Every structure is written in C-alpha cells, then in structure tokens.
C-alpha cells in the first residue's frame, strides 16, 4: 500500500466511523421509540388492542309469552331466519342489496328502506334487510355468504300469535321501533336491528314486563368484523310471561257466536273484575303487523266498514238504549223520587208541552211498576221517572255504575263514554237543559254514550250487590291467590238493587217479556238481562206519519244497534256480560240469544271456579307477574 492509498484508507476510516456514529444515533432513536410504545404506552395500546378485537354484542331477550288464565299460549315466539347488512363492511350497500335481490325476493321499497336506514344509523349497526325467510332462501344465502361482504345471517326469535285474530284487540301486536319510540325510551335494545316492541293492546301496556332485559356477548372479531370466537356471555333476563284473566275457550266461543256480525262481547267475573272474554268482532291478524303489513292489506283493514282495527269493547261508544233504564230506575229509587211501589200508566206515548214521546209499543203497556216496566222495557214509565229525577242524578248514578268514566282497565286508549248533565249541556252548547232531553236520556238515547265494557261493568255492579268492581286483564302480582277481591260498596240500597235485579230477571224469565225467548233454560243457570235497541238515525215526523220503516228495509248503516246486558246465574250471580251488535236492529232478537249462549257457555266452563294458571318468569323461578 503506497502513501496515497494509505491516506485514502485513513480518510475512509474516519468517514466510516462518522457513519457508524450516525447509524448508532438512528438505532438509539428506534430503541427509544420501541421503549416508548412498548413499555411506557403499553397499557394504553393494550387496551386499544382489546377494543379492536373485542366486540360487544347485545343479545335480545326472549319476549315473554301471553297466556290465558289456563296457561294456553296466545302469543309466543318462533324461529325467525333473518338477513342483515352492516353498511360499513359492505363494499357498496347498493350493489350488495342488488346481489341479495338476485338470491331472495327483495323489492325496491325494501331496498330503499335499508338505504334510508343506513343513512340514519351508525355505519357499524347491522340493518335488517329481510326477515321471516323460509328455510330454502336462508340456506341459499348461507351458501353465497362468502361472496357477500357485510351480510350477516342470523336465526332470531320473532313474535307469533297462535291465538290469532280472536285475541287481536286484547293482545295487540308488536312492531318495528319508530323514531319516536327511540326518543322516549333509551333502552339500548331498541337499537337492535329488527327489534320489536309492543305497539298496541297488552303488548304495549306490559311491554316493559314482556321485553325483559338485554344480555351481551363479548366476541373476538377480526378487522372485517367477522366473529372468531366468543369470549364471554351474559344471558339477559327473558321477558316475563303475562297471564291473562281471559278464558281462551270462552273468548273463542264468543267470537264464534258473534260470527259475521260487527260487534262486541264482554264477560266479567263480577266478584273480582276478571275479564273472561272480550271480543271485538271482526278481529285482525296481528302477525301482519309484526312482519310488516303491506299498504294494500292495511287499507283493506282501514276501509272495512266493520272496522277490524277498532276495539269496539273499549273504544266503541254506543247509545245504551234501554239497557240504561236500570240506571234511571236506581237513580230515581235512591233519590227517593219514586217509591218501590211507584206505578205509571202507559197509553203508548207521553206528551210534554207540544211534543209527543212515543213508547216502543204502540198500544201502550197500561199500568206498570218498576219490575214490569223493566221487564217489558216500557218507555213511558221511564219518561215519567226520568223527568222526575232529572239528568244530574241520572248521571251521578251512571258514573257510580261505571258509565261515563274510564273503567280503568289495563289497556290503552279507552273511551270514556258520556252521560249528560245540565252543566255539561250548558258548557257544551251554551243552552239550558230542555225537559224533553231528560225523557230521551231516560231511555238511553240522546247524548248518552257507553262502551260495551262500561255496560258490562254496570251489569256486574248491579249483580254483585252494588260493589265497585273494575275490569282487569292481568291480575296484580300482589293479589293473594284465591282470596276474594276487596270491593268498596257503591252505597246503593239493597232494596233498590233487588228491585232492579228482579226487573232484569223478569226481562228474560217472565213469559211474554222482551227477552223471554232468550232465556237460559238450564235450571240453576238462568240469567237476568236487559235488552236495548239504540237508534242510530232519528225517526223523522214524516216517517212516523207514514209508518215506521222496517229496520230490515234500511241500509245497514242506518239500522239500530242491538244491545244486551246480562248476569247469571240469577240466584247467585257470578258472570256479567254485555253484547253490542252494530246495526243489529233488535236487542231482543239479535243480541239476546248471543248473550244467552255466551253466558251459558261461561257457566259451563265456569272459569271463575278454577285456580288460575301460575304465572312465571320464563327463567322459571315461579314468581307471579302482575
């Protein structure tokens, strides 16, 4: 090595050393960085790593069943094959939906709904695309699922209503969570795709009990959200079963007996208010609402003149007609306006000023007392009594018997009915009460309106000796088993009640009276009742002159409503019933036989005598639910 070379070697050595220094500095930076990340920040990044890999998923609880008093399932759950999509994981939501549309039936409105929902919700929340798939569709989707990023398939539980339309108004239905629901209820369950909450009926009232509480599962997921394994699982609390006071058999019988008629039937246990049957006819299929009702189906229901969606028992307000006469009689007796021996001569009409008020019987009834007047439903007798007692005391008695106020049944949107008073008239119309209106009110026409449930409560309170009984569909959890319900007295004298009860007995069991043909012939099961025919259309003077047009000749909408209230057995009452047949023309001919059959069936089944089914949490700890 010559000198030049040696100098060059020295120069190279110097530079190599400097380069080594630079490299050492850089390596120190790396080591410092690793120390910072892996030692100083290890906890933070460890947590982030777990956040990454662990995904909490909510487990929807099984919704509680709805059972009749005997434990028969009216609403339960069935397997539901569903397909969901997570927008975040789908390459393109639109194209994913199109591909799904090639595999299963998916119309444009459904696709539009998914896209709309994707806008509204957070990107990682799965959105329900379709549910209630059949097994073939579901299997096909499973086969193609590797090619469908973001698509989740699951087997859930969905509401089913084995009870069918007969129970539709009682149980109601569940439906998808609306935006308003989300605002009112912060239960995280509502965020779950396809979650259903009670939308009407008991499903709505007892939604909190039926819903249960969410469980959760911690699953390890990869970066694409695919579940690798489950790390921990907390089962939620399934919803509680709801045991109704309804006797499913009686309910079905009543519905069948109403047949094609548009109407309502209620049967109550007069000693504790248990609603044994509550039919609003026709019903609807609650499953339709759960799955998502089509516009056509919904319009068909809406446009049906028999109003299947309308709960006639609680929301239907009808003039009670002659079934109101017990109220008038009791009001007058209790006020001392008439004595038990009071009689009135019925010539077939009553004149008040210039006006002439007719009795339904053209020739008149002659002289009658309270019992005969009820038995033959004499209008003139009650014109006279109603005029004497006046609207305010009638209203007061009506309220005591349950008419004109909410019965307090555990159902949403109950109608209050109406019983007019002088003050009400003035407040409402700015006019003074006319005496003729007292006459009209006395026969349950004019302003008076009552729901079938209120009429049944009235019958029950008359039958149980004037005690407060309120209808209920679900027993209170706190109620001791088998013990009679404490019932406050209404403060009506037994003498008056006895007289009215005799009158109602006469209606059905005295030959020739209005509902004698509808009597129960079985000894010991006899019922007492009262017919009612409520005018829907005022009979004009001209029509009266030319002879009243036969009901059958009028269009359905103009025909009278047929009503019947009853209790049985007469000797030792237990069951009260109210029947309203819309435009059924005659209480005696239409409603009476139905009431008879239903009450006879009620006594045959005698549900009140049986120990009700023990309610339980679906978890099985045997607690009773209220």
């Amino acid at each position, binding site marked *: 090595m010559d000198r030049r070379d040696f100098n060059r070697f020295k120069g190279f050595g110097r530079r190599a050393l400097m*380069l080594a220094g630079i490299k050492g500095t850089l390596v120190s930076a790396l080591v410092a960085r690793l120390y910072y990340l892996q030692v100083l920040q290890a906890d933070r990044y460890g947590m982030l790593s777990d956040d990454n890999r662990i995904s909490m998923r909510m487990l929807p609880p099984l919704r509680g069943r709805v059972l009749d008093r005997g434990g028969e399932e009216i609403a339960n759950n069935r397997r539901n094959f569903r397909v969901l999509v997570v927008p975040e994981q789908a390459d393109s939501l639109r194209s994913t939906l199109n591909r799904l549309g090639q595999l299963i039936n998916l119309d444009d409105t459904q696709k539009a709904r998914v896209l709309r929902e994707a806008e509204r919700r957070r990107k990682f929340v799965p959105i329900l695309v379709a549910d209630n798939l059949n097994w073939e569709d579901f299997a096909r989707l499973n086969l193609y699922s590797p090619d469908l990023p973001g698509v989740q398939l699951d087997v859930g539980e969905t509401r089913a209503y084995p009870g069918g339309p007969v129970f539709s108004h009682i149980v109601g239905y569940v439906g998808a969570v609306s935006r308003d629901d989300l605002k009112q209820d912060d239960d995280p369950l509502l965020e779950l795709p396809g979650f259903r909450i009670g939308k009407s009926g008991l499903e709505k009232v007892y939604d909190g009990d039926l819903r249960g509480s969410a469980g959760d599962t911690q699953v390890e997921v990869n970066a694409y959200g695919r579940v690798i394994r489950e790390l921990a699982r907390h089962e939620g609390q399934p919803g509680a079963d709801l045991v109704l006071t309804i006797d499913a058999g009686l309910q079905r019988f009543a519905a069948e007996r109403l047949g094609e008629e548009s109407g309502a039937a209620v049967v109550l246990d007069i000693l504790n208010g248990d609603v044994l049957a509550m039919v609003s006819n026709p019903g609807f299929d609650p499953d339709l609402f759960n799955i998502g009702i089509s516009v056509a189906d919904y319009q068909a229901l809406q446009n049906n003149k028999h109003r299947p969606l309308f709960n006639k028992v609680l929301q239907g307000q009808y003039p009670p007609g002659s079934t109101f006469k017990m109220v008038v009689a009791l009001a007058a007796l209790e006020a001392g306006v008439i004595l038990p021996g009071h009689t009135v001569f019925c010539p077939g009409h009553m004149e008040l000023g210039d006006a002439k008020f007719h009795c339904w019987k053209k020739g008149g009834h002659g002289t009658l007392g309270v019992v005969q007047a009820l038995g033959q439903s004499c209008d003139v007798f009650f014109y006279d009594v109603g005029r004497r007692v006046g609207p305010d005391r009638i209203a007061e008695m009506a309220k005591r018997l349950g008419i004109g106020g909410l019965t307090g049944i555990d159902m949403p949107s109950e109608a209050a009915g109406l019983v007019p008073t002088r003050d009400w008239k003035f407040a409402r119309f700015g006019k003074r009460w006319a005496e003729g209106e007292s006459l009209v009110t006395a026969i349950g026409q004019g302003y008076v309106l009552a729901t079938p449930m209120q009429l049944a409560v009235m019958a029950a309170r008359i039958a149980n000796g004037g005690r407060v009984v309120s209808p209920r569909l679900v027993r209170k959890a706190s109620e001791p088993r088998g013990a009679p319900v404490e019932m406050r007295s209404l403060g009506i004298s037994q003498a008056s009640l006895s007289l009215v009860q005799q009158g109602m007995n006469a209606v059905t069991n005295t030959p020739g009276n209005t509902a004698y043909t509808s009597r129960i012939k079985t000894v010991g099961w006899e019922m007492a009742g009262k017919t009612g025919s409520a005018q829907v259309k005022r009979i004009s003077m001209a029509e009266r002159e030319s002879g009243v047009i036969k009901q059958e000749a009028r269009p359905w909408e103009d025909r009278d409503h047929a009503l019947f209230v009853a209790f049985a057995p007469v000797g030792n009452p237990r069951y009260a019933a109210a029947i309203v047949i819309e435009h059924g023309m005659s209480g005696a001919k239409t409603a009476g036989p139905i009431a008879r059959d239903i009450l006879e069936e009620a006594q045959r089944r005698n549900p009140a005598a049986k120990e009700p089914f023990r309610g339980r949490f679906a978890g099985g700890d045997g607690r009773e639910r209220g």
Partner: protein
Amino acid sequence: MAMRRTLGDADVELSLGRKLLDMRWGLILVLCCVAAVGWAMLYSAAGGNMDPWASRQMVRFGGGVVLMLAVALVDQRFWLRWAYLMYAVGICLLVAVDLVGRNAMGAQRWLDLGIIQVQPSEVMKIALVLALARYFHGLADEDVRRFRWILVPAAMTAFPMALVLKQPDLGTAMMLGLEGAAIFFLAGVALRWFALAFISAGAIMPLAWGMMHDYQRKRITIFLDPESDPLGSGYHILQSKIALGSGGMFGKGFLEGSQAHLSFLPEKQTDFIFTALAEEFGMVGGLGLIGLYLLLVAYGYAIALRSGSHFGRLVGLGITSMLFIYMFINIAMVSGLVPVVGVPLPLVSYGGTAMLTLLIGFGFVLGVYIHRDVEIPRRGGAL
C-alpha cells in the same frame, strides 16, 4: 504489512478451496438467523401455517444463498470491470419498465422478460453501489473534494432516482438516494456539498409536493397526524402502533398476536411484519432482531476496513449501509417515526425480489473479504 500476499498481478487466481475457506461463514449464519425470524413470523402471520408464505420464503432464501455464494466467489476485478455496464443495463431496464412495464398496485415496477419478472429498481440498488464504488475507486483524493468531479456521480445517482420516482416508487427512490449519499460520504466528499444538497432539497420540497401523487401526499399528512382519521387513511399506522404497544416488554407469545391474526395489521406479511414480531415477542423480540441486523452491519465494517482496495471498502460498507437503511426506515415507519413509504424489512418481509437483492449484495460483501488482498490499480477497471 509484510504478511500480505501480493496478488497484484491480474493473472494470479485464488484457488476455489482457498476462497471457500475464506468465506465468512459467521456472517452467513447471522443472515440465516435473520431469515429464520422472518420464517417464524410468516408462519405466525398465516395463522400457524407454512403456507402460503413461510415455505415459499424458505425456498427463495435457499436459492438466494446459492446466488450469494456464486457472486462472492467471482473476482473483485471482474465486478469492477463490469460495474458501469451493469449500471447501464440497470438504466435501460428502468427506461424499459417505464415504457412497457407491468402494472402492480398502481405503480409500474415490474418488467416481464418472458421467463422471469425483474424489478429494475432492485437491480439498480446493487448496480448503483458498484458503479459509484468504481468511480470513486479511480478518482484521485484531491479530485474527490472538487465539485466538478462529484457532478458525474451525482448525476449517476439522480438519474435512476428520477426514473424510479416516475414509476412512482418513492420508497425505492429514497433508498437509492440514501445509498448514493452513504457512498459519497464514505468516499470522502466534502461535507459542505452535503450541506448544499440538504439545503437545495429543502428548497425543492414545495416543488416536489406539487409533483407528488395524491397517495404520496396523503401518506405524509397521515404521518403528521395519524390518529386524526383512525378509520380512514390513518388506520394502518394506528393499528401498527397498537400492535407494537400492546406487545409490551415480552409480547403476547408466539402465534398469540391478536392484531396480526385478526387482520387489523395491514400487510402483516410484508412491510408491517416487524409489528407482528414486536406484538408477539415484545420489545425484547424487536431489539433482538435489531441486534442481528447490527451484527450484520458490524461484519460489514470489519470486512470493509480489512479490504485492501478502495472499491472493496466502498462496496462492503455501501451494501451493509443499504441493509441498515432498509431496516431503519422500515422499523421507523411501522413505529410511526417516519411516513409510510413502502420499504420492506430486509430478509424478513415476504417477497422474493428484495431478499434476492440483499443476498446478492451480501455476496459482494463476502467477495470483498475473500478478495481482501487482491490489489486493484486505480485504473484497474479499464477493459
């Protein structure tokens, strides 16, 4: 240096046996160790499977080692003689790839030669070291300090850089630049020229920003604040840091890295493989690998300083510097110290080309040691 065998005569050849005996088998063992770390991590990244990565990587490594030995056995003077030609071929290939190259991942980097596909930029990494080493080997000490004499090698570095940048491949362009700078530095180019280059680079920066592709700009902005957009573009680097951080001191254990196995790590088998290692073996594992790399660098120093020719010294340290730069940029990148530029972890990341380049490069390093006493005259490169 009396002990030195004088083999200055070009006709004298070392025997094959002599050469094999002089092979630095210790260096080769360390290379195998680094590669074995790579196989283990590829095995883990595949969820405990030899396929698809580990097995193929092993085969490639075997082939690469054979090539490495072959390169090491060839006389230094031969490589010196052919250095410029190899550089010229490299430039031609880069031009060709620009014209007819195969498009992969949005950048033209591959050239299909029928039988094999080559990545000209990889050829260039070696050819540039050899060509610059030859240039400085023949340059007088006084001339190295003169500006006009470094214009030629500066152009030799800048031209392929420009071609690679056009592909566009920012990472490789940067590698070439740093490689060239390392050789300039070792050759003794005055520090003021480095200062000048640094300043002019700073001046060009805004201009370069304007010429950059969107994805390149994005990488830089993400680098500056990765956590601003954790689900978007900052995802990779954030997840990478999570993997590193959650590994802690001793790691989660082999095959237990949740970040890598659950696919949160991007490109866990290539550029981000260091994070998988650091997640499963912690800081201890990460430092262990860095230690192996430093051992390779130390071998490079020992060989270079022992070499009798300037060409040998520059090649020896030039190649090991390339390895170092690879390693530093990759680890700095995945730990969030520098922007993500797409530089693999040498010998560990999955991929044949980069590994082949490294092994051939180390073939030259080994060759420098074997031919440490072969004297090459300044004009020795003349054909």
